[in-house]
Each structure stands twice: as structure tokens, then as C-alpha cells.
């Protein structure tokens, strides 16, 4: 999927992958790619401004860790972040279900006409 298309959903997607457990930026990109089956292949650098913004909003928290002698910034979900993720997931489910109903009906109608 093109990077532009997922830009509006990037915050929610990042909250979801960080919810799996503390992760650094590289790991978040890896999880995003793995969970989307390789469809979400955006310029990797774009996740960092988003991670910093989410941290600024109090949805994520971060700390330095040392892994293999290298310093890494690990991100974790805060309680507010968890609540926000729940709300976003519910909103997305309702939206996706509505789109599915409309598109499904259009496909059925189109199919029957054809």
C-alpha cells in the first residue's frame, strides 16, 4: 500500500504494534511490515516523527536501553495510549463494517445486473 494511503492511520497502527510489547523504532517498522503481510511499506523514517508526536501526547512513553552495546530508545504504551487504542479500534471496526456493507451491496447489485 502506498505510504500516502496509510498516513492518516499511522498513529493508530503504531499504537497497535507498540501494544504488543516495548519496541524501538526499527522493531515497530518490522512489526508493521510483518503484520500487514508486507503491504505497509512506507519510508521507514516517517515512523519517528509519529512516535515522538504520540509520546508528546502522552500515549507512549520511552526510555533508553542498551542492546548489544548499542543505545536504543524503547517505546511503550501508556494507560492513556491503551484507552486511545481501544477507542480507535472500535471506531475503525464500525467504519470498516459500514464500508463493507456499502461496497458489498454495490458488488452484489453490480454482479446481479451483470
Amino acid at each position: 500500500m502506498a505510504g500516502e494511503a496509510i498516513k492518516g492511520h499511522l498513529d493508530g497502527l503504531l499504537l497497535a504494534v507498540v501494544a504488543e510489547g516495548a519496541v524501538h523504532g526499527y522493531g515497530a517498522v518490522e512489526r508493521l511490515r510483518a503484520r500487514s503481510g508486507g503491504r505497509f511499506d512506507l519510508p521507514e523514517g516517517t515512523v519517528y516523527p509519529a512516535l515522538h508526536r504520540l509520546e508528546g501526547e502522552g500515549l507512549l512513553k520511552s526510555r533508553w536501553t542498551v542492546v548489544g552495546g548499542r543505545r536504543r530508545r524503547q517505546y511503550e504504551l501508556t494507560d492513556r495510549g491503551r484507552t486511545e487504542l481501544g477507542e480507535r479500534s472500535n471506531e475503525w471496526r464500525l467504519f470498516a463494517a459500514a464500508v463493507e456493507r456499502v461496497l458489498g451491496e454495490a458488488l452484489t447489485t453490480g454482479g446481479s445486473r451483470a
Partner: protein
Amino acid sequence: VIVDYLLELLDELRLPRRQRRRILAEVADHLACTAAELHAGGLEPAEAEREAVQRFGAAGELARSFVDQEAARGGNRAARASGLLTLLLAMLVLGPPGRVFDRGAFPEGLVAFVLAQVAIVAGGLTVVRAWRAAPFGGPRGPRLALVLRGAVVVLCCAGGTVAAATVDGLTSGASGWHAGAWLSLAAIGIGVAVTAATVSRSWRRAVAAGTSDPSPSAPAADDVLADIQAVVVLALAQLARRLPRLRRLLTPVAWSVQTLPGELACRAPRLAAWLDLRHHPWRFAVSVASAAGLAFAAGHGLAEGGVSLANLLSGLLGGALIAGVEALAALLGFAVLGRLLGIRTRTTRSRRARTSA
């Protein structure tokens, strides 16, 4: 290749040193991880680094995202600080505790009173504009410039109020002022200092992002009415989200707010044209100021003499003078600060030029 990329990023990141260091460390770690993975997959080290950098995206664009984001957050902070200062000023100068200032003294007391009202208008606009941009991470571009200008106006007005009230207090002697008044004044003074520091920092971030246009002559790319409408709807939506029980009540209210200008234009076109903030903002400002002056006087009449028709009428009669002064002050304030605050978008000359074109 990675070092060159990091140097380019460092060059473009116009942020505080601590933040810059953190971003560089994170990016360096990410690029090293990607390059190591690609190298393990069979690429030559140099080729792996090039591929890692390419996957990461352009350094300039990344730096721009961070700088813009920081400027927008600065706009939010400036709006919050100036909003709190406005609230403090309104409570201490115009509210019931306002009696701590000798408002009757001329001219200092009057200056403090008028400046506080200008601060309320500027502060209100600033908060509304920042709040409307909140779902997008904060105000950006021309909106950020308007937020910062509004915050500066609030600061100047609060500073002027403190100066005028201090002179008033020093000249009115022990009879007019007491310890509470000086404490209130000190509270506003501290608020001014904190807000000044916040706004100055935010201004620097906005200039670094190149998104702020501090020039007062810059055209305002904004619509105040749409801002107010959007913020009310946003506030109602947030309230409904937090209080699901009230959702049934709040949803139609939000809908009414959205459709109110259209309804007014259909049902009372003359009144709608008179109060058209987009095309006749000075008329809107003067009408609202006069109405506020009358309401203030009527309320005062009822509060002082008790609730009765006679008291209401005498309050309204006495309030005509206050309403006149308020309208004049609104007109002057609008003429002087209208463009700066982005509520006067076109001058008569530019309108004429447009018509002749």
C-alpha cells in the same frame, strides 16, 4: 553513506540540542540495524548502507517533519499559556474579585479595564484557533502565525494592565488598594513572565520551521466564524465521547450549531447580513460589544436592586452609555488590531481593486 546521511540530517534539524541528539541516535541505530540485516542477506556493506538510507527516506523531509511538528507543539503551548493568562486576567480584573482594582480611577483604571477586554478577545481567538488544529497535531502555517500573534497581543495587553494597575495602585493611596490587590497584581505579573517565556520559545521554533509569518501585514488565511463553529462542535463531540449518556442530547445541539448560520440566513436574512462576520466584521464587533455592554448593565441593575422590570429598565438605560463606550472601544480595537489578529482580511482598497478588476 550512513554518516553522510546523518550529517545532512543534523544540518537540517533546527531543534534544541538535546532533541537533535536523541533523533540522531535513533536514526543511526535504525540505519545500522537495516544495513546489518541487508548485509546478512547478501548485500555488500556499502550497498547495504545505500539501500538502508534509501528505505529510510530523504533527510530533508524527515527533518522538516520534526521541525514542523515542534513548531506546531510550540503553537499549542503558546495558546495554552496565553489562554490561562487571559483567564487569570479576566477573573482578577473583570470578575467579582475585580474590585481589588480601583476601576473607577481615570485613566489608569480604565486602561487596565479596556486592555483586559482586548486580551480576552485575542486570547479567545488564540485558544479557538489552536484547539481547532489540535486533531492535526497543532496549528501550522498561517494559522500558527495567527496563534502566535494572538498570544503576543494577550501578552502586551496583560503587561499593559499590570503597568496601568500598578500606577493606579500607587497613586490611589492606601484607601483604594489593599494586600489582596497587590497579590492579584503579582499573580498576573508571574503569569505574564511565564507566558512571555513560552511564547518566545514557540516563536523561535516557528521561525526555525519557516511557517510563521510575523509580519502584521500578511493576509489572514482564516475564517473566525468557521473556527468558532468547529470548536463548539469539537467540544460537544468530546463531551459526548466522555459522557455517552448525554450523546442523544448533545448530537442535535452539535447539529444545530453547524446549521445555525444557514438557518439564520434563511429565516432572518437582514439580521444575518448585519452580523456577517466574514464580510462586515466591524459591524459584528460593534453590535456584539453594544449587546454585551447592555447585558452587563442590565445584569448589574438586577444584581444591585433585585429582580424587577423597573430595575431591568433602569439598568438598560444606564447601560446605554456603557454600551456606547464598549462599541467605540470595539471599533477602535478592531481598526488597530483587526488585521494582526486575522479578523479583518481585506482592506477597502484591496476590495476596490478586486471590484475594478
